[in-house]
């Protein structure tokens, strides 16, 4: 069965620091990869996704992620975080089958950015 590991459960940064959140998945076949974000009091929303093509994916709000197939990784990065990036971040993977995507999520990383 597929699984997703997010290595950092809590991350605390100061504004302008660089961010990298780790994500590894366990499936050797073709996968779709996602990062979702949940801001305080809001619902889950898509940050970025990778289906195929360029392994460096750019998302909203200056986030990017790199798919490294050999490492089964899809790490999220941002060069300079802002206080408004305080949120919980979830990595997810799907194995496309039968025309739909059943998302398998990691446990999440809670990011706190201090001004």
């Amino acid at each position, binding site marked *: 069965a597929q699984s997703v590991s997010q290595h950092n459960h809590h991350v605390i940064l100061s504004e302008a620091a660089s961010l990298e959140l780790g994500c590894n998945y366990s499936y050797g076949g073709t996968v779709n990869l996602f990062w979702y974000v949940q801001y305080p009091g*809001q*619902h889950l929303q898509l940050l970025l996704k990778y289906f195929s093509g360029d392994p460096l994916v750019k998302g909203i709000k200056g986030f990017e992620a790199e798919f490294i197939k050999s490492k089964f990784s899809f790490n999220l990065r941002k060069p300079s975080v802002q206080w408004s990036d305080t949120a919980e971040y979830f990595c997810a993977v799907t194995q*496309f*089958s*039968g025309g739909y*995507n*059943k998302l*398998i*999520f990691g*446990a999440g990383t809670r990011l706190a950015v201090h001004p």
Partner: protein
Amino acid sequence: GAGVSQTPSNKVTEKGKYVELRCDPISGHTALYWYRQSLGQGPEFLIYFQGTGAADDSGLPNDRFFAVRPEGSVSTLKIQRTERGDSAVYLCASSLGTSGNDEQFFGPGTRLTVL
């Protein structure tokens, strides 16, 4: 509204009671998903509907859980004989359903507490 809505936002019940959780997907979305998010975990897949039919119910934990979508729009997740371990946030998501690459849009969730 433009997004996925879920009612109630909070539900407190006693062990052994029956509960129903409702999801209104985005208009025109034929695919609907239910997920469950326990404290400190990422969302876990429960069931997927394409139109009126449950195409994949492999994530339902046991036969106390059941979901319907009789007219291919609103869906209801039903839990019988609730147990304390059912306490979680139940999330609904919908997508266009035309392709496995369709983005899933999440609702705000229903927080279920079983006393």
